[in-house]
């Protein structure tokens, strides 16, 4: 048995380069000295080409899934919720542009590497979140997207071992994906982090993610993915939501604001502060976030407010906030979640 497994693995390793060069051929990009370049670098060059900033962001994601991730056009179309013909056209246009404008097939030099790597990591992260939080699409395709993102992140981290952020992204994906079995109920509803059955979490993935993160942090080259991973590690290594180091999580979000000064990060920080110092302290921060007119239309803001109001014992306030969130028409899974919370509030009112 074991020997067969080893043979299978060897076979896969042998087949892999062939698959990749056919992907590169499909891209119809010229690869000078292709036989003298180690296959790993070739694979990395392919990813960098697919994530080139001269292509628009959606195209980068689609192209990376097709050429580097090995997904079929119809699978990509399904995850983007567009028809197969539309997606095929988009991919053809992208390949034509790469060829016609001569977008180089190579790993960028030292000078351009940091910003280009940031683009690559962003694309892999988008693939993952599409699978992780997709509002529709089959469970199968979503799981496929997460697995593809983890595989790509692993290859990039392996091929660029000096880049702490590449390891940071892989750690983040592993630590987050480890919770997938507990994230939805058998009925397909979202389960809150604090209510998840932690025995369902994949401990092997958590340990690997945590180990990768520690190694990355020791390089002393901090960045947003390492911070997101550190936050995920705080959650994944705690025995319960109450046991989590919320003060540390709040501090990590504050640090993250230096890289991503977005209301989304600020709202996450508010929730962590609420857990560390009480709901009232969190509400103060959320109220400031809510001053932003665009975020008034963000259902998650109202969902976060509702939860903090509930913790404060303000059931009417919590109910109103959930209803506001519903009016903003969040994705189906979140609507179901809100209805469940409203039922819960109603049953505790009596």
């Amino acid at each position: 048995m074991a020997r067969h497994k080893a043979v299978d693995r060897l076979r896969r390793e042998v087949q892999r380069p062939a698959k990749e060069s056919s992907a590169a051929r499909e891209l119809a990009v010229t690869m000078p000295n292709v036989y003298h370049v180690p296959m790993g670098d070739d694979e990395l060059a392919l990813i960098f080409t697919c994530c080139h900033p001269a292509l628009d962001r959606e195209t980068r994601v689609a192209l990376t899934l097709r050429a580097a991730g090995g997904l079929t056009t119809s699978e990509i179309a399904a995850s983007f919720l567009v028809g197969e013909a539309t997606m095929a056209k988009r991919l053809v246009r992208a390949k034509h542009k790469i060829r016609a404008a001569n977008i180089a097939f190579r790993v960028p030099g030292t000078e351009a590497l940091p910003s280009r790597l940031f683009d690559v990591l962003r694309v892999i992260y988008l693939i993952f979140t599409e699978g992780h939080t997709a509002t529709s699409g089959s469970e199968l395709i979503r799981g496929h997207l997460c697995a593809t993102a983890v595989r790509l992140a692993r290859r990039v981290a392996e091929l660029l071992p000096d880049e702490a952020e590449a390891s940071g992204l892989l750690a983040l994906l592993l630590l987050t994906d480890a919770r997938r079995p507990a994230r939805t109920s058998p009925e397909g509803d979202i389960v809150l982090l604090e209510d998840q059955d932690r025995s369902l979490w994949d401990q092997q993935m958590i340990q690997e993610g945590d180990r990768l993160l520690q190694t990355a942090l020791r390089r002393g080259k901090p960045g947003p993915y390492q911070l997101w991973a550190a936050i995920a590690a705080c959650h994944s290594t705690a025995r319960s939501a109450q046991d989590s180091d919320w003060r540390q999580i709040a501090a990590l979000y504050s640090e993250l604001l230096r890289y991503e000064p977005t209301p989304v990060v600020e709202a996450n920080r508010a929730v962590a502060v609420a857990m560390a110092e009480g709901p009232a302290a969190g509400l103060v921060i959320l109220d400031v976030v809510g001053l932003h007119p665009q975020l008034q239309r963000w259902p998650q803001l109202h969902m976060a407010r509702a939860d903090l109001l509930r913790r404060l014992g303000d059931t009417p306030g919590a109910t109103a906030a959930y209803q506001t969130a519903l009016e903003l028409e969040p994705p189906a899974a979140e609507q179901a979640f809100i209805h469940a919370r409203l039922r819960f509030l109603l049953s505790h009112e009596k």
Partner: protein
Amino acid sequence: MKYLFLLHRGADEDLPAPGTPEAMALFNAYREANEAMAAAGVLVDCAPLESVSTATTVRVRNDETLLTDGPAAELKEQVGGYTIVECADLDEAIKWAATLPAAKDASIEVRPVVNVGVPT
């Protein structure tokens, strides 16, 4: 391969008046960028264009030549000049386009030039 830079600019009235220090500064900024491209051996050709108000648009329909006084499309930004460079790939072309003042004031469209012979 060759790339054409279409250098966009805002309306004519936004340009500095000839002879002013601002016009001199802009002229010098272009000269410096163009000299750097020439020194690197990538510059094929470059020139500013007369104002879009001097443009004539030509269309032939049913063997008849129709002229329109003005540009083919009314846009907020107009093409104010062009540069042709010979570069190894798009990254190199983008690097040079970014050195031109139009990239900071307005925008530059980088278009790969199809390699076909010009009759001589």
